[in-house]
């Protein structure tokens, strides 16, 4: 029953947040807060996302390239790396980075506010915690997640090209040409939609866990931990569902 109640609370928070998205642009303070959340979500996580995506592309290029070399088909290395990144790996690695860096921070921040009764104080002042706290964060995640996913794809492809050129004897230009020739609009848009869904999921789960924090500092830690775990699991499950839906 507790699990069902949690899902219901998360759904309520998610729906309430999405409905209030337009309110972000109504006041200057809201826009400033949204801008600040964009910076925290996108720019602050950029170093981690860069390293993760770079090495993801490099590892994929090396593994796939070694197998392709057995058949003298290294020419398709760029295509293999690009198709994997744009469809799956870029949104996935970006989602994991956001869940661990941003989602956990949101859950901890809101959890601390909850245990310090700051959320109740907002309610007393007739300020909606969702509008004031959740909307800028979740919307920032929804905006930044697709952009970061595409950024992951670009950086990962460059990393794969570097590995191909230095270790597998595949010319960088040829690698990029192969990568660009295989990519299709559908793959790109499916990847971006996945990232958007991941961003929304991370935001809603983090806010839900943060606002549902109990039992003081211990509860904050638990909320943060649960936020990360649930986000990881949901990213995997939603990733599969979207792939299943779009590629049959």
């Amino acid at each position: 029953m507790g699990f069902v109640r949690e899902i219901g609370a998360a759904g309520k928070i998610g729906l309430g947040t999405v409905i209030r998205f337009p309110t972000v642009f109504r006041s200057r303070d809201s826009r400033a807060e949204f801008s600040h959340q964009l910076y925290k979500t996108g720019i602050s996580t950029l170093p981690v996302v860069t390293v993760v995506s770079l090495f993801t592309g490099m590892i994929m290029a090396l593994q796939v390239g070694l197998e392709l070399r057995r058949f003298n088909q290294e020419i398709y290395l760029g295509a293999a790396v690009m198709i994997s990144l744009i469809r799956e790996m870029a949104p996935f690695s970006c989602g994991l980075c956001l869940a661990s860096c941003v989602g956990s921070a949101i859950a901890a921040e809101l959890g601390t506010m909850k245990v310090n009764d700051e959320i109740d104080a907002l309610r007393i002042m007739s300020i909606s915690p969702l509008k004031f706290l959740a909307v800028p964060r979740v919307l920032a995640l929804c905006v930044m997640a697709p952009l970061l996913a595409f950024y992951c794809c670009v950086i990962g492809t460059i990393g794969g090209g570097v590995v191909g050129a230095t270790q597998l004897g595949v010319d960088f230009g040829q690698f990029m040409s192969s990568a660009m020739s295989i990519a299709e609009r559908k793959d790109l848009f499916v990847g971006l939609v996945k990232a958007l869904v991941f961003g929304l999921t991370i935001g809603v789960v983090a806010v839900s866990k943060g606002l549902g924090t109990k039992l003081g500092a211990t509860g904050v830690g638990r909320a943060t931990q649960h936020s990360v775990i649930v986000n990881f699991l949901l990213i995997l499950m939603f990733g599969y569902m979207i792939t299943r839906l779009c590629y049959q």
Partner: protein
Amino acid sequence: MSRSKASGFSDLVTGVFMLSVLALLGYFTIVISGIDLITGKEKVDVRVVFDQVGGLKDHDNVMYRGTKVGTVDRIVLGDREVTVIMNIDKDVILREGYTIRVQSMSLLGGNLMVLEEGEGLVLDLLSTDFKGQTPTDWMKDVQDITANLNKITSSGEIEATISNLKSATEKVNNVIAKVESGEGTVGKLIQDDSVYEDLKVTVANAREVTDEFKGVRTVIENVTQITEKLKDDKYYDELEKGLTAFRTAFEHLDMGEDLKASANEVVVKANDLLGTLNNVAARLEQGEGTLGKLATDDTMYNEINALIRDMRQVIDNYRDTTPISTFGSLATGAL
């Protein structure tokens, strides 16, 4: 840095990042849509009708003179045909006698469309409905071949052939076994190396004989030279003159009767010797007797040399073929 300045800087960085990624995303979207922003070549849609397209799909490459000139834009399934709309460079020229076919890119899959120009009049790309060649269905061909093989196998011909092959193999194995056990002439030749040793001794002897024969020939040649010299009247006359002069001088010498008689005897014997040598030389020249034949006819020498060469060749061949025969017998015996 004040709070407002810090906020402004973070907004600027965020904006730059978002605009950069959005621009890159826009460019990427345009590029993967097949629009060439760099060269800006004008493209046209060309319709090609196929009976079937063999797995061709959207965005497959279109090749012309070995270079990519466009991609397959879309494929439309008709009542009895498939229409492929390809987006290619306007500069492409197709003439009467053109061919358009779907070709496999590699064994691992993938297709491309190949355009061949043709030799006749130039055709308008936009107003012509081009006809494509039906691609070869490799899988179907392989299935047909497999079916034919199954048919042949099931008819019993293969079984009969295999049975004959088994029988032949057994016979060959028996022969090889006999050879290996030393039965028969071939077996003895392979298993018993005494023949080889005998041959070696024979060759060695023959070589010695040859060397000795070379010595005999040298003697004969010297004799022949002597004979030639003896045959020459000049030498004979000079020798006779020398003997006459010797006799005259001897007669004029003041010597005792016993000594004169001895000298006369020597001269007579020398004359006899000259006569005999002359006769021998004449007979040798005519090739009489063994020595004469040896001196005048070198056939035997050549034949002996040829014999020895042949023997050596036989021995070499035997040496070369022995390992092969042995290996062959082992390999065939193992079957």
